[in-house]
């Protein structure tokens, strides 16, 4: 921390949670984060929670997000629940959850109705075809970004597990539940064995 920071800023950084947000503040914060989040909400969640409101330090945010990443379901929905409950219990979780999902669900439902009405219009179909091509590219880049740490670490076991899941789901089109029932215990066992060997 730079020595010339004003004392108020130091206090705010060290005790980002000194004034726990209220229910309305939680709802509004997550609604704003959600509505800003084109193509993924995570970046905006980090900005809103850590940089703008200082409700968490960067490390606290990373730990909370890591927890939400290994829970099933949409990460960011999990994050809203874990975050909200940490400050205000069940009502806090409900406020953050409805803030995150309520406003966009209204918007998406309206878009769904428009699509049902006008989806057959040729110009709209052409636009959507173009958007979905670009969107698939975005998804690919997210996959590559997530793969980079494994490639850099030469994590061969991780890459083999990754490829096995990719083949089972992407090429062989096996049901998700069946693949995961095999892959999750297997991957945990391998990771555990590798760490034990690394520690010994």
């Amino acid at each position, binding site marked *: 921390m730079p020595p010339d920071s004003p004392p108020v800023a130091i206090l705010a950084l060290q005790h980002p949670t000194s004034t726990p947000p209220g229910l309305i503040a939680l709802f509004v914060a997550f609604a704003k984060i*959600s*509505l800003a989040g*084109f*193509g*993924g909400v995570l970046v905006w969640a980090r900005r809103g929670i850590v940089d703008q409101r200082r409700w968490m330090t960067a490390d606290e945010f990373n730990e909370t997000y890591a927890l939400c*990443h*290994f829970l*099933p*379901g*949409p990460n*960011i*929905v*999990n994050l*809203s*629940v*874990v975050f909200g*409950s*940490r400050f205000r219990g069940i009502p806090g979780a409900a406020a953050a959850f409805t803030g*995150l*999902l309520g*406003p*966009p*669900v209204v*918007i*998406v439902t309206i*878009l*769904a109705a428009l*699509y*049902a009405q006008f*989806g057959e219009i040729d110009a709209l179909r*052409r636009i*959507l*075809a*173009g*958007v*979905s*091509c*670009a*969107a*698939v*590219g*975005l*998804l690919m880049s*997210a*996959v*590559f970004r*997530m793969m980079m740490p494994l490639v850099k670490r030469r994590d061969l076991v*991780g*890459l083999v*597990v*990754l490829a096995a*899941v990719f083949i089972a*789901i992407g*090429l062989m*089109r096996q049901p*998700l*539940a069946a693949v995961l029932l095999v892959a*999750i215990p297997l*991957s945990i066992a*391998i990771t555990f064995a590798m760490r034990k060997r690394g520690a010994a």
Partner: protein
Amino acid sequence: MNSDNNPVWALVSTFGLMSLFAVGGGNAAIPEMHRVAVDVHHWMTDKQFADVFAIAQMSPGPNVLIVTLIGYGVAGVAGALAATLAMCGPTAVLAYYVGRLLTRSSHSRWPAIIQAALVPLSIGLMGASALILALTSDRTSVAAFVTGASAVLAFTTRLNPFWLLLAGGVLGFAGFIG
């Protein structure tokens, strides 16, 4: 299962179950959604699935809201709400309890091991999503080029994704995608 005569119940049971198996976020569940919505229940065609994926990516909010669009197509507003709550509700309850549990015993090493074990799985699932969607969207060489260019630009630059989606939409409107 009376899913044939009550579509809302079919949505709730389908997405409620999927919610608990969707490791690695909403996008990792795309192949399973595609399999269920197109192949198993015949709720929509391949093309419609690619369309709702595009709409979900373009709209604000978490990308998991693709289930809202699928739900609307099956049973209107009730279907949209049912699918959204089924996909987000069970996992939210689980997140609440696990979050409380782990903040109490944060010195255990199991969270780290489980997390490390799940990382390659979730990347593999997302890769499979990208493949399945590329196969449904990229029917021409120009379309495949747009996907490739968008992937490279998003990977190598810090461009806001919205501009790439907009560029795709403009090219589509101009009739280049087909």
